[in-house]
């Protein structure tokens, strides 16, 4: 059936009569198809397929678990051995003190002294190097004395004294010093 379409219809403008006709017709189609459903045996087929798929999925899961169960401890052991060997054979190098290294200015305060603190040069390095018989002496020095070398000193502790090792020349001139705890 091929019908010529009126221009108003091609634009989708329905008359009230056509609207009610469509409503009634679709109502009857709804009523007639409302109880239709897929064939009953299809449900049984799909349930069977679902169970088969679950069995396949379960088998795949078990295979994965088996692999993890058997191989994971081996991998973990190998990783531990490897890590231990690396820690033993390649210890981390401790950074050595390098007087010539370009580092930022170190500000020492009188609260953070410790024994392995490097010597602080009080004279020029050339003068220290030229000194024929330098010696190290232990001394107690007033904290106030540090201020002369640019170390911050808190006013409350200015009267205290510190233990230090002094590198002195043969005639007793301080060349370098370091603090002791």
């Amino acid at each position, binding site marked *: 059936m091929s019908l010529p379409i009126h221009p108003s*219809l*091609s*634009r989708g403008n*329905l008359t009230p009569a056509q609207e009610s006709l*469509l409503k009634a017709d679709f109502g009857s189609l709804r009523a*007639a198809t409302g109880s239709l459903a*897929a064939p009953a045996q*299809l449900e049984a087929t*799909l349930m069977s397929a679902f169970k088969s798929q679950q069995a396949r999925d379960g088998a795949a899961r078990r295979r994965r678990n088996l692999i993890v169960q058997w191989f994971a401890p081996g991998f973990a052991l190998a990783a531990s051995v490897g890590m231990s060997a690396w820690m033993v054979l390649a210890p981390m190098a401790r950074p050595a003190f390098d007087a010539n290294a370009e580092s930022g200015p170190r500000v020492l305060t009188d609260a953070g002294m410790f024994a392995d603190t490097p010597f602080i040069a009080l004279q020029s390095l050339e003068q220290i190097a030229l000194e024929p018989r330098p010696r190290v002496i232990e001394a107690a020095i007033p904290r106030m004395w540090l201020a002369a070398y640019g170390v911050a000193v808190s006013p409350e502790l200015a009267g205290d004294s510190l233990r230090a090792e002094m590198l002195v020349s043969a005639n007793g001139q301080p060349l370098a010093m370091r603090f002791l705890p």
Partner: protein
Amino acid sequence: MPLTDPTEDLALLTEMRRGNAAAFESLYRRHQAPLYRFALLRCGSADTAADIVQEIFMALIAHSLKFDPARGALQGFLFGVARNFLLKREEAQSRFVHRATADEGGDARGDGRGDGSPEEMLVDPSPQPMQRLLDQEQAERVRCALQQLAPHYRDVVILYEMHDLSYVEIAQICDIDIGTVRSRLSRARARLAALLQADSHAGAGAVATDQRNFPHQQEARP
């Protein structure tokens, strides 16, 4: 307006993916009938409609469908899958028909689409042979009229009139914008109204059409 609760659908789908057979059964029972009816009205064949429902749920079982809850309800998603399966079948069928036509040296154009005018495009270029599917005369008449619409017009009318879906849901299912849904629906309803009106006015003519369309039915009558 979804026919099923999307939250419950999602919970059932999650359970189903965990291997819960009862959840799958529930999902199937909730969705099979609307999908079957959609496919039936869309393709006009009960066997194909059943096959489509089976294909949808088999794909769901085999985890080959990628459903994203953020993009819409499961029901709309399944309608979209049904539509895609139907389109694939139609495509394969039309390839077969075109090849057969070419082999027989028939239509010179070979595309069966006529002059491509809007009115022409409203009509299904390769209508399937109609079998009587519904007992109720008026309903069968509407179904036959629907069958005469081009598939992309049929989609929107069925989803809108028979499944109460909104423009937005239809747009998602058919992968078109809302404006296109509106225009297709409007034009398809106008075409249907014209067909049904002419059919009801024809009276005796409708009987003649019925005899042409359903010869097997006539043979069965006393």
